[in-house]
């Protein structure tokens, strides 16, 4: 079980928490070639409860639907069968888990390991900024524009 699942008085039971963890790993799988973690290994549960409480009811309904489609055994299925079950469900309901996925994306792309892979630091932009990241630019590229001369229309 993930270290994320530590919230007191949270609205999910143990079975639902297990499902959420498995689903987060399907939404963003681990990528060993890029050394990128899976969605299940980033902290998502606290912020889900705190910042997206309006999505929880729909999410719980979606968990029930997934469980029903696999006769209550989703988390125990081999990964390939989990993928197939989700694929089948999303043919009928293309937006299944999309709100949860938006939340996973938000958390994932704030994770220091992920940002480091993107060449970014996990920090506030201010006050350090990013002054070394952008070229001033080669202004000689403007020579053809200059050589063409004015294009504005006099009005007086």
């Amino acid at each position: 079980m993930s270290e994320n699942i530590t919230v007191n008085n949270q609205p999910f039971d143990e079975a639902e928490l297990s499902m959420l963890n498995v689903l987060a790993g399907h939404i963003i799988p681990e990528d060993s070639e890029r050394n990128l973690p899976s969605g299940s290994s980033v902290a998502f549960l606290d912020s889900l409860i705190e910042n997206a409480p309006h999505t929880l009811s729909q999410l719980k309904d979606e968990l029930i639907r997934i469980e029903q489609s696999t006769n209550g055994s989703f988390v125990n299925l081999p990964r390939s069968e989990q993928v197939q079950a989700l694929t089948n469900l999303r043919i009928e309901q293309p937006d299944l888990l999309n709100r949860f996925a938006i939340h996973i994306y938000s958390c994932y792309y704030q994770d220091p390991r992920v940002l480091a892979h993107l060449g970014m630091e996990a920090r506030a932009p201010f006050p350090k900024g990013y002054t070394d990241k952008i070229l001033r630019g080669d202004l000689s590229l403007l020579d053809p524009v200059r050589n063409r001369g004015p294009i504005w229309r006099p009005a007086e």
Partner: protein
Amino acid sequence: MPDDVVDVLIIGAGASGAAVAWSLAETKMRIVCMEQGDWMDPAQYPSNHADWEVRRSDMHPSPNHRSRTADYPVNDDNSPIAILNYNAVGGSTILYSAHFPRFHPSDFAVRSLDGVADDWPISYHDLEPFFAMNDHNIGVSGLAGDTALPPHDPPLKHLPLGLMGEKMGKGFNQLGWHWWPSDTAIITEPWNGRGECLNLGPCNAGCAQGAKSSADIAYWPDAQRAGVELRTNCRIREITVDSNDMATGVIYYDADGNEQHQRAEVVIVACNGVGTPRLLLNSKSSAFPDGLANRSGLVGKNLMLHPWGAVEGTFDEPLASHFGPQGSCLLSQEFYETDESRGFVRGYNMQITRGNPPISTAIGGLTSGRIPWGKDHHNLFEKYFDRSVYLGICAEDLPEEHNEVVLDDEQKDSNGIPAPKINYTLSENSRRMLEHGLNSGVQAFEAAGAIEINKAPYPLRYAGWHLLGTARMGNDPERSVVNEWGRSHDVKNMFIVDGSVFVTSGGVNPTTTIQAVALYIADSIKRNLANLFD
């Protein structure tokens, strides 16, 4: 205090109200500005926090989404373009991208040149010194020599182009089209005690560095030091008039919701192209049963919004495109001036803006279907992140009387003042212009070597920043609301200084022209002080 009479009462502390306050301060008159919002605290802006991307939602540009105490609702259900603004000291400049291109000389003479709409009663030449004054006051960066405009020299060096800017410049060159680094209201060198841009990124959620020249930091400190009093959290309900059709002051609600009256010798309205007609239409009296200064019937009419189109181009190499001021890089005005062979009159600006940061890239990709969740997620994220560039099309919107701001019958703000309602339809000319613009954007990206190009459906809904034309300027009191220097035809001690007075919209972001017009009107007031009401 409530029975005090101030010399000048300015309503609204945004782009135009701040410029007017600064200019009039030298008269030593007693000047009070009332603003329905409060001061912003730059330490609270998202870029102070590591989770800045998520926090940007707190600064949503639609007042209907934000619903802060300072906001008033806007019924824009009957418009394909949503109304955007911000209510605080600094107004919508708190959130603007600071892309700062000027109107062209032809924008002031569209009837004479192209036979459409109306000419302005003033010219680019009249405004030129005020453009330059404003550039200097707030600190505008850019590069002298832009061939699409009469010569002008921005006081600060241009923003960095970056790899993405060079790539797009080469594409425009291949097509033989105009392009130029944008004039931008972001300081690139220390200026008037403010530090230069650090490429924080999210300019349109407030600038923590203070490098973006929003009116709260670029104008108000100087205006206050010069003696202007700024009262925040004051929401004006109506402007009052006497039996001689002269404004006597305003009725407003203070921060505690108490009704107050402030008397004034001169009233200056600076509430933007939606807020100004809302206030005038709500200021009914026996002398003005259809709203104050509305004997022409044109208050609220001729709303112009700049319909917006967008194209995204993706390249096959990293461009560091997500770093830097998001809304400002370079522009092309190849199709700004009229060429009727294109199938429309007037023209548009193409604004090259930077790519999205990680979360926006991922979620935008999820909602568009280009970066789905599942096994291909990492490959597809890598395809778009740091490799995407955006091209915005700002289409000139011609004035049409049926595009309007009226008072809503049902919605009200927290003080019970009727909300504005927008009735707006996109014209056939605008449709053709946007189609042309989108195709031009595709050509530009193809020439620049993009491997994937996507056109967004037009007009973009959340693009109604530019609120213009609803109290137009003119010499004929039957066909305009204010005269050539912003004074109401009907109420001779009331002036309007915001984008409401625009006769036409141009095809560029209007803030520099709004501020130049405001400074020009303030200068006219100063030159006419001896006989201001004649």
